[in-house]
C-alpha cells in the first residue's frame, strides 16, 4: 500500500456540519405529546386583510358612524382594490379631507353618516370627491 500526503487540515477548514451537532443543547425526557399537532397561532392579519399591498389602516375621529359599529378612534381596514358600490362604507377624500361614510349612489350621490346627529353630505358639482377605498372592517378597542 502507498500513502500520499495531500496536506493538512486546520480546524477552520472543516465544514460546519462537523461541529453542528454540538451547537444546540439536547434535552432529554418525554417529548411533548402536542408536537405532532403543532399549528401556527391564529393570525389576525389573515382574518382582516385580503390584499395587503392595497390595504391601509386609518383611524376614525368622531362618532358620525357609530350606528355602523364604528366608534371614535376605531381603526378602519381600508382596501383600495375593491370597487365601491351603492351602500359600501368608504373612506373618501372630500375637499382635501378624509371622511368615513356610507356611499349612496342612488337617487343622487351622497355620503351618509350613521348617526342622526349628522347631516348627509350631498356632493355638489365642482366638489372634489375621491373614493380612497372601501372599509372592510373596523376595530373598536374597549380597553
Amino acid at each position, binding site marked *: 500500500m502507498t500513502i500520499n500526503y495531500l496536506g493538512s487540515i486546520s*480546524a*477552520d477548514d*472543516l465544514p*460546519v456540519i*462537523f*461541529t453542528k451537532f*454540538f*451547537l*444546540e*443543547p439536547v434535552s432529554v425526557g418525554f417529548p411533548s405529546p402536542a408536537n405532532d399537532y403543532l399549528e401556527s397561532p391564529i393570525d389576525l392579519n389573515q382574518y382582516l386583510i385580503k*390584499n*395587503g*399591498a*392595497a390595504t*391601509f*389602516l*386609518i*383611524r*376614525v*375621529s*368622531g362618532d*358620525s358612524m357609530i350606528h355602523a359599529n364604528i366608534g371614535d378612534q376605531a*381603526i*378602519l381596514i381600508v382596501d*383600495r*382594490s375593491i370597487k365601491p358600490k351603492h351602500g359600501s362604507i368608504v*373612506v373618501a*377624500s372630500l375637499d*382635501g*379631507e*378624509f*371622511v*368615513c361614510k356610507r356611499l349612496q349612489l342612488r337617487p343622487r350621490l351622497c355620503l351618509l353618516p350613521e348617526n342622526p346627529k349628522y347631516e348627509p353630505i350631498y356632493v355638489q358639482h365642482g366638489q*372634489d370627491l*375621491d373614493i*380612497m377605498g372601501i372599509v372592510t372592517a373596523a376595530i373598536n378597542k374597549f380597553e
Partner: protein
Amino acid sequence: MNLLALVDCDNFYASCERLFRPDLRKKPIVVLSNNDGCVIARSKEAKAMGIKMGVPWFQIKKAYLANGGQVFSSNFALYGDLSNRVMHVLEGMVNNIEVYSIDEAFLDLHHIQNSNHAYEFGIHCRNIVDQWVGIPVRIGIGPTKTLAKIASHVAKKKIGGTGVFCLHESLQIEHVLKHLPINEIWGIGRNLSRRLNDLSIYSSYDLMKMDTRLIRSKFSVVLERTVRELRGEQCLAVQNDREPKKQIIVSRSFRERTGDFNQLKPLISNFAVRAGEKLRHEGQKCSQVSVLIATSPFSKQAQYRGFHSIQFSNPVNDTRSILAGANQALQDCFRQGYAYAKAGVLLSQFSHSSVMQRSLFDDLHKSFDQKQNEDLMRCIDSMNAEGLQVYYASQCPGQALPMNKKMMSPKYTTSWLELPTAK
C-alpha cells in the same frame, strides 16, 4: 420578440407625500435630502415653478413658500413601505421582476408576444398600481432594458399621453434615437458623453450606428453592450434575485461642524447602531467595521480625512461588537484640531448569518450565549421598529447632533401612533 418593461414611479417621493394629503392635490411639493439640505424630489407642479433637482433649500425657500409650495423632510419609512407595495403588486402580475431601485422595476414580458398586447398590459398594470396603492407610474416597453428605459422617457415627455409607451418597431426606434441626446441614455454620464461628442457622436442614433469593435477598443465592453441594446439585442436580462449587498454605509454631513471627540463619538455610535440594524435586516454578518471622518471640502480651514478599519476574528452582527469596533476605529483615526463636517460607519466583508464559522475547540457555552445575543438583538430591533426607542449607552441620544428633519410627514403606514385619520 422578447419584450420587457420598465415601470417607473412618477416623482415618487412627492407622490408618496401626496397620498395621505388630498389637500395637496395639484400643489407644488418638494422633498429635501437628509438634514434638509437640498431638493431631492419635486412634483410636476414644483418642476413647472422652475425648481431644479439638487438645489440647496435655503436658496429657494423664500420664493418657493411665498408661491404656495409645500416642503417635506424625507420620510423614508413611508417611501419604503409604499415602494414595497408597488413592487408586490407588480410581482403578482408577471413571473419575473427585477426591483431596480426604490421607484423602478424591470418586468419580463416574454409571455406576451404581440406588442399591442404588451401595450394593453402596460395600461392595465398602470391602472392596477394606481388603484391599489395610489402611486402613479409610467411604463416603457421595449425589446431591451436600454430601450425600455428610453421608452419610459418618451412616456414621460408625452403631454396628455397614457403614461405607457411601447418602442419596438425599428423605424420608430430610429426616429426616437435620432432625437435623443446620448447623455440621456441609461448609463452614459457627462464625461463619457463628452468623449463621444469628440468623435462627433451626438444623438443616440449616431451611437447605435457605431462599429461595436471600435467602441469596445476605444471605450469599454459596457458601452459596447449599450450599443447592442440600442439595436435591440438583449444583453442585460431581467434578474430577479439581486446580488446581496457587499457593504453597508451609514454616513451624514452635519451642519454644525465639530472638532470635539466627545461629540463625534455618540454620532459614530448612532451610525454603528443603524448599520447593525441594516446588517441584520439583510441577514448578513460582517468581518470588518470602518469609520470615516472628514472636514468639509468647501471649508477654508485645515483639511483632514480619517479612515480606519477594525477586523473581527469571527463575523458578527451584534450591535455591541460593531459599536466596540467603531469606537476603536474612531479613536484610531481621530485627530485633534480639525472641524469635522462628515462622518460615517461602513460595514464590509459579509457572510451570510446562518453560516457559522467557528473552530472545533470553541467553548460549548459560547453557543448558548450566541442564541441569547441573537434574541436580544431581535428584540431590540423590533422595539425600535415600533418606535419604542432603545439606545445603547454610548449613543447618548441627548448629546448627538440631531438630524434636521423638521418638516417630516407622519409615518402613515408604519406606525400605529401616526395613522391618517378620517372624520
